[in-house]
């Protein structure tokens, strides 16, 4: 477990974040600080707003931020386009990765890498250098090399799509990875491979926010902090033991606790 040096600045600081989808208020005031080297698990029942939080942080245009601020490395990113956030080092692993028929994985990933490099004042990567890097990442996250030769996610199984998200994460080397229910729909083998990938990419220089409905993935990825999101608010935070408590008692326990509080 990583400890945070006193006085360090958070990688991500969310203050009073509220957001809507259409007329529906989904996030009702989120406060959260994430430091480099940390893994935060965000848990909660369906409809609590946990996927919305991940998507709002990545800049999905379907949501409207109505209040609060999000500082990433000290910069307010809420006004920035999703591609700018991505180039700064925010990565969203999708709950339902999209199929891109006709878009070759190679081309897709290289465009992402080059966009980031240009953003950082570097030159585009040469094709040869990119080939080597991609091959190394494919080995690292143990994805079938044939998947990279095909169109992105086209005809992939659910597990292959999630693994491909992890490969993209490995290639783009984000500072903040948002995993939106990456564990859902995975069998135990796929779950282990995805978790191994995340653990491999964890470092003291990055952070992970793991959005999940189930405690299961936390058997493989040990979080530093667990937060429970309910009705658009973080209603409880704790260590890994909180996840086990949720597993035992279910979400009704949280619902009851919150509602008697009110």
């Amino acid at each position, binding site marked *: 477990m990583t400890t945070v040096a006193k006085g360090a600045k958070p990688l991500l600081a969310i203050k009073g974040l509220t957001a809507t989808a259409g007329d529906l208020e989904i996030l009702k005031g989120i406060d959260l600080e994430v430091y480099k080297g940390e893994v935060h698990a965000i848990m909660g029942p369906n409809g609590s707003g946990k996927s919305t939080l991940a998507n709002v942080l990545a800049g999905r245009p379907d949501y409207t931020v109505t209040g609060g601020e999000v500082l990433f490395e000290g910069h307010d990113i809420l006004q920035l386009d999703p*591609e700018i956030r*991505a180039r700064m080092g925010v990565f969203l692993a999708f709950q339902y990765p999209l199929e*891109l*028929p*006709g878009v070759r994985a190679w081309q*897709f990933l290289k*465009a*992402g890498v080059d966009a980031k490099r240009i953003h950082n004042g570097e030159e585009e990567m040469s094709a040869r250098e990119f080939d080597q890097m991609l091959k190394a990442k494919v080995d690292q996250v143990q994805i079938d090399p044939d998947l990279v030769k095909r*169109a992105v996610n086209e005809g992939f199984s659910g597990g292959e799509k999630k693994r491909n998200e992890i490969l993209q994460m490995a290639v783009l080397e984000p500072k903040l990875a948002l995993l939106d229910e990456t564990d859902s729909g995975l069998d135990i083998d796929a779950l282990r491979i995805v978790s191994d990938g995340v653990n491999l990419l964890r470092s003291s220089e990055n952070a992970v926010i793991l959005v999940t409905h189930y405690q299961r993935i936390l058997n493989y990825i040990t979080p530093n902090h667990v937060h429970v999101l309910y009705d658009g608010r973080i209603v409880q935070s704790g260590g890994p033991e909180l996840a086990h408590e949720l597993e035992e008692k279910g979400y009704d326990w949280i619902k009851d606790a919150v509602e008697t509080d009110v």
Partner: protein
Amino acid sequence: MTSVSVKFAHYLADFKSLTQGPGAAGPPWLRDLRDSGWSRFNKTGFPTARRGNERWKYTNVGPIAKTDFGIADEPISVPSDSLPVYEADGQQIYDLVYLDGRYSPELSSPAAASAGITAVSLASVASDSSFGLEGQIGHYAPPDDDGFAALNTAFLYDGAYVNIAGDCSEKVTVRISYITVDGTKPKVSHPRTLIILGRNADATVVESYSGPKESVYFTNAVTEISVGDGAQLDHYRLLLEGGQAFHVGTSRVKQEKNSSFSSASFALGTALARNDMEVLFGGSGGFCSLNGLYLTADHQHIDNLVSINHAEPYCTSRLNYKGILDGRSKAVFGGTVIVDKDAQKSDAEQTDKNLILSRQAEVDSKPSLLIYADDVKCSHGATAGHIDAGTLFYLRSRGLDLDTASKMLIQAFASEIIDTVKPEHLREHVESVFASSIPNKTLPMVGIR
């Protein structure tokens, strides 16, 4: 009613100078064919987009009828920049190049019937009966087909003649380039292409049409193709005319027993384009795959009328067209698969998919099946859609800006058809032509979620 001779006065003058000038020297059968074309054209005139005329329902050729197009004088200079740019990868290519419809010996590298391979100018061999043109020209695309075919027949003089003899062992590639040269007056050309593949022959033919970007001109092309028993033809049609150009292309294909015809038709940039293609299975066991990709912008209009006639049993056809529409452009797709009563075990699929990039663009897609046999497998479908907002976000979340992301998705949509091009040099050429023409969409049309 306006008298015909006044209505088509400029065509009549050109017709007279052809028949009394260079055309007079041709063989009698060709002169008769021209006359029949001319009288047919006088009777029918240009087709009109009136009700009940299904073949021309959505396309108004008024602008073609109203313009005084004339046959070009001899071109003075050779526009080297409009010549085919792609290189063959080490393989022999027979090149036939035409400027304003006239064969250019300087720019061509023909094949003169040696080793069973003929790829020559029509005009140069029309009088030589050993080439056997009589009975072939006008056989697959008769002048009574429609007004444009009739007009082309009336002005039949030059074009391309490709004949691969039966059991020719060489895999032949012929590239036919019809280039309109910039000029002061609106010009018309009526190129005729005749492609005959003998038994078991194997050939690739690339027909391309191009011209100046800013001039008004009209290409009225007719292509006749016969694919012999067991023969295989890969046919590519590149329509890269200028932005003020009119193009009407009529292609008629007859396939014999166990033959294969794979075609890909690419169109972009033309003000008004019509691609009328008919394939007839004249023998059992044939296979044809007709692919098309069109990209339209501004006020451009394209009309693809494609029909496949399963007249014999055990034939398979695949018809797959895709369109990308921007600006106020309009695309028409009329696909018809006809399965005759005796054509059992026919297998036919037809689709037309369109990607609409602007609210003002319009597509009229009408795939249809006419089935008279009972043991067949046929399907058809048409779609029109926008770039999906969720997909766009997926690409942006990986760092790609809107322009790059939408361009990548548009290219991906086109790639299904471009990837059907077998020769690598041609595929790369088509890919780059399309890539450079895909509009930059700073504010793409996105579907509402």
